């Protein structure tokens, strides 16, 4: 059953786009984003201490960063809200057993729910691209920055949506699935970096103790920091951007640390690998959960 002919996708999209709700939400989202971007620009312009107005390149970067930030919030916290209720909603509506006694494969049910939920999230992301493109009018943002940012957002949208879908497949209520999904999203975006910020200086304190400090430890610590950053979308975007701007490094750069020349990879590449892997694992788990004949 192909994605295009998946009855669940057709049904879900038809229901979601029926009536005014979807269009009202889209309009409000774009109005809020436009208002926020305008506000950021005005604040930035007012703060710029320049008689000829703000530096357009820096203004472009600020707008680009604002839109990407909103898109990040959208895919991490709003997207999973759609999928967390996708399968539990069927259970609560008492339609899940009807679906499970049809010939619809578990894979088609999970894919249909995923595609239809992501379809709307991607619609919101795509609709915000014209606002994001204002940054190009002002300058200061390269095409490659935009491509990398959107690639990260695309993979994050799929992975975070699958976190919601996984919890939806194993839990009975949408409330429980939503709470678990948000808790996981918070852990990945806030909890893990906070823990790293607390733990890394402690480890660093040991390694950089003048008595036992070693260049190898410094390199290892740098790699641990990079890998941890690669698990967090905001950190990945910020560090990748810094490496791109300061070192002109899209994929990697060579740095001298403690007398050693080491390869510093840009975290977005590892982020894409990790979250693609996470997405595949969650998809397989959700499908096997839906496929299984329960014993109670």
């Amino acid at each position, binding site marked *: 059953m192909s994605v295009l*002919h998946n*009855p669940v996708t*057709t*049904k879900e999209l*038809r*229901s979601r786009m*029926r009536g005014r709700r979807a269009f009202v939400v889209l309009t409000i989202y774009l109005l809020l984003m436009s208002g926020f971007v305008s506000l950021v620009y005005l604040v930035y312009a007012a703060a710029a201490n320049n008689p000829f107005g703000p530096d357009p390149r820096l203004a472009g970067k600020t707008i680009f960063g604002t839109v990407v930030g909103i898109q990040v919030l959208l895919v991490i916290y709003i997207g999973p809200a759609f999928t967390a209720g996708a399968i539990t909603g069927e259970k609560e*509506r*008492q*339609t899940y*057993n*009807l*679906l*499970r*006694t*049809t*010939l*619809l494969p578990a894979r088609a049910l999970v894919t249909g729910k995923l595609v239809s939920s992501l379809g709307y999230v991607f619609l919101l992301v795509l609709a915000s691209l014209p606002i994001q493109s204002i940054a190009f009018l002002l300058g200061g943002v390269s095409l490659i920055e935009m491509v990398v940012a959107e690639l990260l957002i695309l993979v994050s949208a799929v992975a975070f949506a699958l976190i919601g879908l996984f919890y939806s497949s194993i839990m009975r209520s949408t409330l429980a699935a939503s709470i678990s999904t948000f808790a996981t999203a918070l852990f990945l975006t806030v909890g893990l970096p906070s823990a790293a910020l607390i733990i890394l200086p402690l480890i660093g304190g040991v390694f950089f103790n003048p008595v036992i400090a070693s260049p190898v430890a410094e390199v290892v610590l740098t790699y641990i920091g990079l890998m941890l950053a690669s698990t967090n979308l905001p950190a990945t975007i910020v560090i990748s951007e810094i490496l791109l701007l300061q070192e002109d490094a899209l994929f990697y750069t060579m740095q001298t640390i403690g007398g050693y020349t080491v390869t510093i990879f840009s975290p977005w590449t590892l982020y894409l690998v990790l979250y693609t892997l996470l997405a595949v694992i969650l998809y397989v788990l959700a499908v096997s959960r839906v496929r299984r*004949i*329960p*014993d*109670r």
Partner: protein
Amino acid sequence: MPTIIDIQNLTKRYNGLTALDDLSLSVDEGAVVGFIGPNGAGKTTTMRVLTTLLQPTSGSAWVAGHEVTREPQAVRRAIGYMPDFFGVYEDMKVWEYLDFFAACYDTPAAARPGMIDDLLALVDLGHKKETFVEELSRGMKQRLCLARTLTHDPQVLILDEPASGLDPRARIEMRELLRELKHMGKTIFFSSHILSEVADICTSIAILEAGQLVAYGDMEEMKRKLRAHRLVQVRVLGSLAPLQEFLLRRPDVHSIAAAPEADLPRDAVRFDFSGDDDALSALLAALISQGIPVLSFSEETGDLEDVFLQATRGIVR
């Protein structure tokens, strides 16, 4: 008739509670089987196992020759299932609802519009095709759900309490629909609490109590089997005394009752008779030959409630 549902030693336990206890049952193709029993007897559990929704603790079940846990997709192709509690997609139109499920059953897109019209005509919802499901009455939703079970033309319909929660008119419509499906040659396995309705359309009944099958067989045969004695009512002209004296001498007559103790007309007597049809006929001939002026001589047909109460008596405490 070949067997289409075969249940062998099916047992289901949940947390120490035995919902099904070594249940064995087979249903012939084309049969309409009423699956009756009190709440908690295990009817829904049996149906959930048959419809691939529940893993049994032990035992096996086959539907259309396919084992339910090993070949679930083949079983799903053979069955149409209507659960006791089911939801509908309220924001869909009636035709969209059927189109969605037809697609889930791999029905080709080109074949669906005609099939949907036929199904809606069958369940008398043709005029509601473009209506949103949320606007349908309970009875209409029930009929729509029944139409949904038919989108892939299954051999077996497994219906859990199809008439529950319906008003009398909707119940009659549902019964007529099941009768129509019976004429279409479908095997129908359905549970109900409304025993009189089961009696109207079933070819067989299975009585389940405390997870055990306490009685199963052909409808009429079951009634006969479960009634040790037949109830006979006789009305005579004039005094009842000669009749009562005659009956008291008969070893196959028991529990003679008359008005005012019994709820009977003043000229009638009712008694239990333990003989077969020939003996009953001989009894009537003997009454006539004794010169007893018989006005009417009839056997009271017991209803299914009697059968059910008799079959389940004493099992659940």
